[in-house]
């Protein structure tokens, strides 16, 4: 079977004499840190062909020899039950890396060797990178790498990637192994006696039909583990009668997984007994001590609130002034451009100054907040605290069919919906991620809040504060209700059980965080940035032509077309046009209204009844998000779900607007 992943190795691989290293490991073992330490900025972040999973490749040189590194997705095992697991093992089987570096966390060696037990069954030679030796020490665990090496039969390199120690030794070991100077004779785990005969039987049945490059013993084992991909593969490859025999055997021995996993843990147990000295019973490690506070129902929540408070404080004291400063800079640039293009037609100079530089400016002004949020996200994830947030918030999120990991992305939305959508990348399951992306635009961002804060006093005077809080509370209530509804009705599907590792705490690695921020910001500029720029230029053209006056522009014309819809909500065409322009940026609502109405303070309250005013604020708060957010949604979940999201929000906002106006009018407001 040809795998699409065969072509995924970077072009360097075809050049002479580069050794290809695949980095494999369970989540949270510091695989990315090792990758970053080795490759630095010589890395490329893309997607695995045809997949939404990020693929990181990079290069490094050691003693004049060039190495290509492929960072495989972090997985707990190698059964093709998730996209990540499939990618990782397909790459090793079809891409045939010269060496697989299996990264394990020394502090949780027993658990993280499980993946190694699986990696040793695949054809590539394996080097064990025993990472986080410092964390293990801090938890009171002592490991003897030479003993482990002898027991496993593969090279073992102790290292502490976050501090940069052991990295050179790792690459030197890889070099010696690929040059044949040291050998790799792994001790492989087998299966417990209970199912040995069955495994042998299946192997005998499939032996002659297993397609290249798979090995019959491995395929037989995977079949017994209930691996979907291997089942499909062998169903196609075997004559029907034989497949039936195999299938019957598998059906009768569905519990074989216990003996397979059991054998792996026994194998691991032998390694551990040989090489690891554990702390005395009752001696609490650093993580246990921290967790007794940080995951405590009361103190944990207090700590969480403090952390979140700090995040917002940082964003507002650091991000907002920078954002304003950049905004001023862009405005200055726009004016000087207008001046420089004075000889050109007015519309052209205006397009360049307002449409293009204005659009680019918006992209640029997003950057400070984005960078802060990416850095916060990376630090929370890198230290291990993110998992604690997920644990603490799981119960609340559970009612919406989400689990704790969706909490942070949604929370980021209060700053700006763009990092909120990007932040959903930390959610592992596709379904939970999609649900979070659909809900995220309902979190009122700072720009929407600004509109609410400016307009509410105009309509409601002294009651403004109460109305504004009510509106935000209503938006969040709608978010929760929509979440419950989507979870129960539309996105029903498989309810992914909540099981998550709480990694040991460790100090973050600055280089890793820097690279994370750099790559994510760059990706945003490249993908979402171009869309924002394009749409902003188009909307500007629509608001300028044909005459150059907004009130006579195509955009206003569209606003007039929307008047019938507006009538259900008691909104005149000016308000509908303002809603349209809010698509470029939420702040535009105010600017458009000032152009269309002149003096807002007197004209606006006169133009709308209180019911209509409330309806407008509701629509404004729930309306489709700004183009930047929409572009980000498209980048993250594709066209189809972006359309679903837009229709959902459009229906929801207009529906709520009509409801508020009609009920309000009935009540005589």
């Amino acid at each position, binding site marked *: 079977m040809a795998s699409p992943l065969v072509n995924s190795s970077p072009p360097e691989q075809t050049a002479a004499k580069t050794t290809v290293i695949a980095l494999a490991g369970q989540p949270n073992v510091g695989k990315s840190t090792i990758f970053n330490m080795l490759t630095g900025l010589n890395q490329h972040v893309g997607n695995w062909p045809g997949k939404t999973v990020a693929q990181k490749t990079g290069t490094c040189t050691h003693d004049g020899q060039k190495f290509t590194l492929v960072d495989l997705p972090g997985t707990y095992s190698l059964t093709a039950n998730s996209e990540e697991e499939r990618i990782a093992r397909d790459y090793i089987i079809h891409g045939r890396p010269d060496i697989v570096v299996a990264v394990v966390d020394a502090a949780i060696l027993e658990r993280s060797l499980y993946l190694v037990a699986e990696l040793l069954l695949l054809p590539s030679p394996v080097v064990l990178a025993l990472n986080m030796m410092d964390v293990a020490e801090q938890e009171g665990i002592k490991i003897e790498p030479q003993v482990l090496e002898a027991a496993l039969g593969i090279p073992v390199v102790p290292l502490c990637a976050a501090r940069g120690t052991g990295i050179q030794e790792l690459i030197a070991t890889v070099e010696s192994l690929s040059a044949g100077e040291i050998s790799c004779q792994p001790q492989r785990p087998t299966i417990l006696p209970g199912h040995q005969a069955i495994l042998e039987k299946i192997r005998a049945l499939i032996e002659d039909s297993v397609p290249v490059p798979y090995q019959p013993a491995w395929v037989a084992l995977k079949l017994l583990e209930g691996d979907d991909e291997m089942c499909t593969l062998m169903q196609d490859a075997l004559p029907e009668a034989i497949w039936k025999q195999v299938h019957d055997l598998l059906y009768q021995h569905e519990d074989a997984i216990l003996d397979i*996993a059991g054998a792996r843990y026994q194998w691991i147990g032998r390694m551990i007994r040989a090489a690891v000295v554990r702390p005395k019973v009752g001696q609490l490690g650093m993580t246990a001590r921290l967790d007794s506070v940080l995951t405590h129902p009361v103190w944990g929540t207090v700590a969480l609130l403090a952390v979140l408070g700090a995040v917002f404080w940082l964003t507002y004291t650091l991000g907002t002034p920078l954002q304003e400063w950049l905004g001023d800079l862009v405005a200055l640039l726009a004016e000087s451009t207008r001046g420089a293009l004075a000889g050109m037609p007015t519309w052209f100079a205006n397009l360049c100054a307002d449409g293009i530089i204005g659009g680019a400016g918006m992209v640029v002004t997003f950057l400070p907040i984005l960078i802060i949020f990416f850095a916060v996200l990376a630090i929370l994830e890198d230290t291990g605290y993110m998992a604690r947030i997920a644990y603490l918030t799981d119960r609340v999120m559970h009612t919406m069919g989400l689990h704790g990991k969706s909490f942070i992305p949604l929370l980021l939305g209060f700053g700006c919906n763009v990092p909120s959508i990007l932040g959903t990348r930390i959610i592992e399951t596709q379904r939970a991620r999609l649900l979070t992306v659909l809900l995220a635009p309902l979190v009122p961002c700072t720009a929407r809040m600004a509109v609410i804060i400016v307009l509410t006093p105009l309509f409601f005077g002294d009651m403004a504060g109460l109305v504004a809080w009510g509106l935000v509370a209503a938006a969040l209530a709608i978010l929760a209700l929509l979440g419950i509804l989507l979870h129960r009705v539309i996105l029903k599907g498989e309810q992914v*059980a*909540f099981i998550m590792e709480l990694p040991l705490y460790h100090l973050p690695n600055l280089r890793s965080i820097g690279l994370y921020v750099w790559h994510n910001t760059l990706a945003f500029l490249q993908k979402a940035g171009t869309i924002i720029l394009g749409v902003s230029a188009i909307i500007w053209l629509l608001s300028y032509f044909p005459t150059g006056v907004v009130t006579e522009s195509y955009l206003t014309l569209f606003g007039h077309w929307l008047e019938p819809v507006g009538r259900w909500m008691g909104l005149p065409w000016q308000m509908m046009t303002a809603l349209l322009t809010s698509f470029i940026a939420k702040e535009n609502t105010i600017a458009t209204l000032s152009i269309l109405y002149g003096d807002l303070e007197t004209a606006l309250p006169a133009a709308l009844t209180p019911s209509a005013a409330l309806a407008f604020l509701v629509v404004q708060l729930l309306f489709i998000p700004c183009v930047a957010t929409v572009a980000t949604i498209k980048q993250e979940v594709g066209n189809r779900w972006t359309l679903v999201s837009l229709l959902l929000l459009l229906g929801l906002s207009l529906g709520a607007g009509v409801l508020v106006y009609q009920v309000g009018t009935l009540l005589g407001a």
Partner: protein
Amino acid sequence: MTLAMASPGEEVRLTAIHGGQRMRKRLADLGLNIGMTVCVLQHNGHGPLLLAVKDSRLALGRGMAHKIRVELAN
């Protein structure tokens, strides 16, 4: 009893897992296999449980904890 009935501080051995092959595989990958011992670190009657499993810490949803049968380990 089920894992959801275990109290904090208790050490329990897994005796049965009620669930499909896929769920059992997922649990086994993370160190929750039949015959293995885990320690309940936190469990306050609602929300997820915090378990110590082979040096690592796992948060496990209540729904899943109800499907795992355990006995006291000592």
